[in-house]
């Protein structure tokens, strides 16, 4: 494969955005039949480079060759015509239409009569060729996320793509679906397609990539290295530009008084089904309690009940002695509860407001930012600049709109806002999801620092490794109830795994004991 011809050659690509050089003479080559991973932190320029290849951006300088021919893309249509297809991270599908209808959307054919069965057969043929199983007649809303992604892949194949760009394809998938996706990618390259795989999950890159290119701050730090023989540590270093500490050090700290007390909490989810069914938990000052569980077992609802965003049907919540059950969100804020929400775009930030407006969201009522009925712009700006520097938020200025920030920088804005007020309790839901190694490390360090400073922290995460490293205790939630609480240093992944699927800790210990006795 190492001598197969180039499917794509991009040389000296330059893209300038106001204030940033997003791509600085970037070189990238993709051989026919290979999986080439494009690595880099958020904001390193990966997406920009791929937007150039898919015809969305025109480079300020540089040459693109596809199959040896110089090309010039004026629109995504031109890129598609050259066989370049993008599998978007956020699916571009119409939920009420069928798989086939979605695949045909935007094409010149069929012109007048739909004649769906004919196209369903065509879709079926492609599916068989590449082993991408999904019912062509099914409506999008009826199929799983993994299947929806297959529809996105089918869309590109139907349009004759030879080069497929996968933009962080595993971010939305469950573990089982990730294995299937990897199998699909292998099948595609086996049939002569070439794949560009954008990711910052190093173990996935390790598992699938033939070669890697690493970008950092718009520049290539490693060009087309063969994957074989690289270590995760080495890759992380190339991405971040320094050594990354994979094992975070946690100082011992005796916990203090109980801060958060949740007892017998009952709540329903958005669909009206029971989400919390008698949930009780205490978190003490200077302690991180991790909540482990498969998504959708009541974690989100728990965080929302504590922060006042959801009405609970029973039970009580109190923070540092203040009764917060069914109080408005403001009561929780005033009681010193910080909240790093699960959805940083839709809940945690306001996209079309500036960084300044976003960081004052919780403190605009108080001095010095809030000044009677007015907002002191000068203080707000100084405050924002200060946070931008302290938390290393990369943006041209504090007047930058939140929606222009990369995921990691946006999360830093949220973290900065939430923890500068020295909260008594921090409710952090998936604080590192989708972030690159550098940002993950920064966020984790800040949480540990808050712990040392005496904050009680409730950490909800789906990354078991993260939970065990950061937490003092891990509580496992299943179907809105606690299956068991274990000290993190004694945590056994298998045990936690069993609890996550609905076995209680006592039952586990009991069966272990009986097994031991017999």
């Amino acid at each position, binding site marked *: 494969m190492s001598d197969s011809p180039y499917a794509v050659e991009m040389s000296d690509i330059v893209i300038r*955005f*106001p204030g940033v050089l997003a791509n600085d003479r970037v070189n990238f080559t993709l051989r026919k039949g290979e999986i080439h991973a494009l690595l880099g932190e958020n904001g390193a320029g990966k997406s920009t480079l791929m937007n150039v290849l898919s015809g*969305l*951006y*025109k480079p300020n300088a540089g040459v693109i060759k596809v199959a040896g021919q110089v*090309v*010039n893309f*004026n*629109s995504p*249509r*031109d890129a598609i*015509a*050259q066989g370049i297809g993008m599998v978007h991270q956020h699916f571009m599908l119409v939920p009420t239409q069928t798989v086939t209808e979605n695949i045909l959307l935007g094409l010149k054919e069929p012109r007048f009569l739909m004649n769906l069965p004919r196209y369903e057969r065509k879709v079926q043929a492609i599916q068989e060729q590449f082993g991408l199983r999904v019912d062509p007649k099914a409506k999008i809303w009826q199929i799983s996320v993994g299947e929806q992604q297959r529809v996105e892949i089918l869309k590109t194949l139907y349009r004759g793509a030879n080069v497929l760009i996968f933009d962080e394809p595993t971010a939305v998938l469950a573990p089982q679906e990730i294995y299937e996706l990897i199998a699909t990618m292998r099948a595609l390259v086996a049939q002569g397609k070439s794949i560009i795989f954008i990711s910052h999950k190093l173990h996935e890159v390790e598992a699938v990539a033939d070669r890697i290119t690493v970008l950092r701050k718009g520049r290539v730090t490693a060009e087309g290295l063969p994957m074989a023989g690289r270590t995760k540590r080495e890759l992380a270093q190339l991405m971040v530009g320094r050594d990354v500490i994979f094992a975070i050090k946690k100082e011992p700290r005796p916990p203090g008084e109980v801060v958060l007390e949740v007892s017998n909490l009952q709540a329903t989810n958005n669909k009206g089904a029971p989400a919390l069914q008698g949930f009780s938990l205490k978190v003490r000052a200077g302690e991180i309690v991790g909540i482990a569980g498969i998504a959708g077992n009541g974690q989100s609802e728990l965080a929302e009940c504590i*922060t006042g*965003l959801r009405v609970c049907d029973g039970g009580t919540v109190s923070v540092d002695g203040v009764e917060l059950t069914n109080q*408005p*969100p*403001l009561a*929780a*804020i*005033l009681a010193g509860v910080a*909240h790093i*929400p699960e959805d940083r775009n*839709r*809940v*945690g*930030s*306001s*996209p*079309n*407001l500036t960084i300044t*407006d976003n960081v*004052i*969201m*919780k403190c*605009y*009522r108080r001095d010095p930012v*809030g000044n009677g*009925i*007015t*907002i002191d*712009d000068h203080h707000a700006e100084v405050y924002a600049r200060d946070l931008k520097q302290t938390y290393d938020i990369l943006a041209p200025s504090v007047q930058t*709109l939140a929606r222009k920030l990369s995921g990691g920088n946006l999360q830093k804005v949220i973290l900065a806002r939430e923890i500068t007020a020295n909260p008594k309790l921090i409710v952090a839901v998936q604080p590192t999801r989708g972030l690159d190694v550098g940002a993950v490390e920064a966020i984790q360090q800040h949480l540990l620092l808050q712990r040392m400073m005496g904050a009680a922290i409730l950490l909800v995460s789906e990354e078991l490794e993260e939970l065990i490293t950061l937490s003092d205790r891990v509580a496992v939630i299943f179907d809105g109830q606690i299956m068991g609480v274990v000290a993190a240093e004694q945590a056994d992944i298998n045990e936690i795994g069993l609890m996550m699927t609905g076995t209680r800790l006592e039952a586990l210990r009991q069966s272990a004991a009986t097994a031991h006795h017999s």
Partner: protein
Amino acid sequence: MALPFSVAVEKRTEDVPRWMPALTSVGSVVLAFVFSALVLWLIGVNPVQVYSFFLRATFGSWAAFSDTMVKATPLILVGLACTVAFKMKLWNIGAEGQFYMGAFFASLVVLVPLLPTNSPPAVLIPAMALMGMVGGAVWGFFPGVLKARFGVNEIITTLMLNYVAILWNNFWIFDRWSDAGFQMTPTFERNSWLPRLSDYARTYPAFSGITLHLGVIFGILAAIVVWWVMQRSRWGYEIRLIGDNPQAARYAGINIARNIVLVMMFSGALAGLAGMSEISGVVHRLQERISPGYGFTGIIVAWLAKLNPFGVILVSILFGALIVAGREVQPSGIAQLIQGFVLFAVISSDVLLRYKIHIVRGADHTAAVGESA
């Protein structure tokens, strides 16, 4: 198909420069006049003649300019009313009704009368202005509460309440306060009239016939207040946050329901003040059709001004001029034609703010054509 160039449309990745929105707005108004000229030319009229006539009728003299400003005054206030609500993405389509209720409440002061009929203007006029705002605010309060408490769509309720307000007004002017059977109340006493420049013609002869009244000052002050509230106050910050992302606002501890009611009342109060200014400054009585649809034009004004309070003043003057022009030329539809073109041009100009448009020539062009072929 061998054009010497092709047009490439590219999504903007960077923020547009600050002057760009203003430039595209002005540019599109100019373009609208060019298109209208084309239509005028096609129907066999000399557009230069029509436009110069328009210009004379609307800005040609102090009296003409005063007429334009008199028409612009209610538009400014109503445009601001819509701006306030739209900033929070509250679609208040009820400025028309709030205008009528403002006029009705202001009239109560002199018709009931709530204050002695011989009170000095310094007492009567502030009282009427206040009552006008109360009337509009009440008419904004109901849809606000319905939306905040029960999630009732404010577009429907505010629209429907327009008819209620107009008919409510009719009841009083047809039945209770009718002046000798006409559909209007008796003319108010002079002490309840907003001062006009022509009132001072005796001392300053130049003001003779200039009907510009104090309402225009209300409009300008209101624009400053709206700007201050939106950009400087805590409340304005809350409104902007709710408008951009209600979920984040709730997460920030903001009471959204309360703000819906308050903003609807604020919006209604501004429209109500417009109603007061119209009866106290122009018609001097409560009567039928005091508004030729100002409440609806205000929606357009707010949009064209891109929800900028000072932009509202400028757009209102343009629309005020078009109303005056429409009165002066035959067929009067010409002014409406221009209005329509302005609306289309400004709305389409938004494309320029979101996309870059290139003309591709030469080698690039042939390459592009070669590929698509």
